[in-house]
């Protein structure tokens, strides 16, 4: 298992090189003047020239890439014209909020999706199954930003149950920053009131974000459970007289989950892409909101920084999921 983990972590290096190459290509190879983009819409010709010098645009492409990649390692991710701070500093400030939202949404989707998928497969072609199929296809088709707006209309404006947006009320004391995840920090500080408040703010965006991965997990879990149910060993277990519930929960679940986990890895990217939309709707101060406000102010380097950051999260998230699969299913360690 340790060998497997070490090998997977080492494989990250070429992937990260590839990721930086791709981002480099977006900034330097597409039509459009990279220095002008990085300098912003109101830059003077002198400023643009200075950025062109910093980027080394007169040098060869490999030399430019080398300067760019070593700059990234040194922490030079460019400057935000709007906040007038280094992009990396901004990302550090906004990333915990995004992580909190993504983890909450993912947790919700997995915790509900796996049992619902199992239920649909066990009740195959009866009404609970039909209902989950149609509802989940509908949920996948639902634009997350529209769902977020509907939630705001219903639960925040009409009913007044939950806050409209933001992450924590202005003027209230934040719990001491340890992880940057407000709910966790509040619990660590033993402040139950702050935990409750943070949870209230987290609920609507997390539910809006979890719905389409939830639906996907239900569909995948249903399909892989049905496949596992047709395996010979299930027939044998049934012949041995094991109860349906025992077969489903002890033997089928484990095998069906590892197939579903692979898909969860792929949809992790969909979830990360969704942060941009959901954070914009709920004014959730994460890297997605940072990126969309950068779009509106034509602030180019933050957009590039967020792209790189989300790409890295996606790669690392998939690594963790691979490790989880290997933990569940020893056969996967050989691949």
């Amino acid at each position, binding site marked *: 298992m340790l060998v497997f983990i070490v090998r997977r972590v080492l494989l990250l290096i070429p*992937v990260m090189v*590839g*990721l930086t*190459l*791709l*981002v480099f290509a*977006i*900034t330097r190879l*597409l*039509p*459009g003047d990279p220095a002008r*983009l990085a300098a912003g819409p109101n830059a003077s010709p002198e400023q643009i020239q200075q950025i062109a010098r910093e980027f080394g645009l007169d040098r060869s492409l490999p030399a430019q890439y080398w300067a760019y990649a070593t700059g990234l390692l040194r922490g030079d991710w460019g400057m935000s014209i709007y906040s007038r701070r280094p992009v990396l500093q901004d990302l550090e400030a906004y990333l915990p909020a995004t992580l909190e939202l993504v983890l909450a949404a993912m947790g919700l989707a997995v915790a509900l999706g796996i049992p619902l998928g199992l239920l649909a497969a066990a009740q195959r072609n009866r009404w609970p199954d039909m209902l989950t199929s*149609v509802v989940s*296809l*509908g949920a*996948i*088709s*639902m*634009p997350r*930003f*529209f769902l977020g*707006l*509907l939630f*705001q*209309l219903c639960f925040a*404006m*009409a009913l007044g149950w939950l806050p409209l947006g933001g992450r924590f009320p202005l003027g209230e004391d934040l719990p001491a920053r340890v992880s940057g995840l407000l709910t966790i920090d509040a619990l660590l500080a033993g402040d139950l009131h702050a935990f409750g408040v943070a949870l209230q703010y987290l609920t609507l965006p997390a539910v809006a974000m979890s719905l389409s991965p939830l639906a996907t997990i239900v569909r995948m879990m249903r*399909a892989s459970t*049905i*496949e596992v149910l047709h395996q010979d060993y299930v027939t044998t277990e049934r012949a041995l007289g094991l109860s349906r519930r025992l077969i489903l929960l002890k033997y089928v679940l484990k095998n069906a989950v590892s197939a579903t986990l692979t898909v969860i890895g792929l949809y992790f*990217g*969909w979830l*990360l*892409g*969704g942060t*941009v*939309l959901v954070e*914009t*709707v709920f004014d959730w101060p994460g890297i997605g909101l940072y*990126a*969309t406000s950068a*779009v*509106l102010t*034509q602030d*180019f380097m933050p*957009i*590039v920084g*967020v*792209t790189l950051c*989300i*790409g890295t999260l*996606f*790669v690392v998230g998939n690594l963790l999921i691979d490790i989880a699969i290997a933990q569940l299913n020893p056969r996967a360690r050989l691949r």
Partner: protein
Amino acid sequence: MSASLPRRRSGLRRGFYRFRQSVLSMAGLAVVMVLLLVAVCGPWIAPYPQDLSGAVHTAIRFQPPGPAHWFGTNELGQDVFSLVLAGTRISLLSGIAVVAIGSAVGVLIGAVAGFFGGLIDDGLMRLVDLVLTIPSLILAMAVAAALGPGIVNMIAAIALSWWPGYARLVRAEVMAKKNEAFVVASTAAGAGVVRLLWRHILPNVLSPVIVKMSLDVGFAVLTVASLGFIGIGVRPPAAEWGTLLAVARGNIPDYWWTAIFPGLAIFLAVFAFNLLGDGLRDLLDPKARR
């Protein structure tokens, strides 16, 4: 060959029968047909065509839905129904264009990689892995920001993140087909690479590609609307559903109709294409049916 032909025919016919029997697939097909019709003639059947070219009526701002304005009016006094109708063309056209460009590029790259194998295959597939490391919406956002606003740039940006799925699919199919007897036979008969791929291999790998395309149009429409909502892509006054929704965000809750109807239009279009795609998958790709 001749013996297998009638069996395949009857299999297809049974598939059509199943498709017609499936209420959901037929509903999806019906809605898609209506949407396509609206996309073709939307601007002509819009009740207030002058609103589409940016007419402003300050006297009738924020009228609630009623007989004169079915979906109400927006902050400029424009008829929301007309705007949503006109948006159908932009949204569907961009969605279909994204899938057309993405699948064309992906099929070409996948076919070349699968057919030649070796170093070419390795290189192209590493490129595919690379593009897949960034979630498509984020990649499209970055590329669109680099290219600048405009509908053509937006379509190009999304298509750039859309081809790898097709490349993987077609590569696997071509690799499976290229050693079959009919390919070997036409190689022996002196067929060149282009003829082999175009006349013999590609027609045989087409049905999974068509299924993927039909499933993808819905998500492409969704991505176009998402970029519009973020503020990249189509700029007002051009009526695009995501852009309409982004502008209307400031009007809720008092003027909810300006936001609800464009949002419902996006949902309806994506849902219909997904239902249709699910039905087509059952029809053309029986292996995937469970």
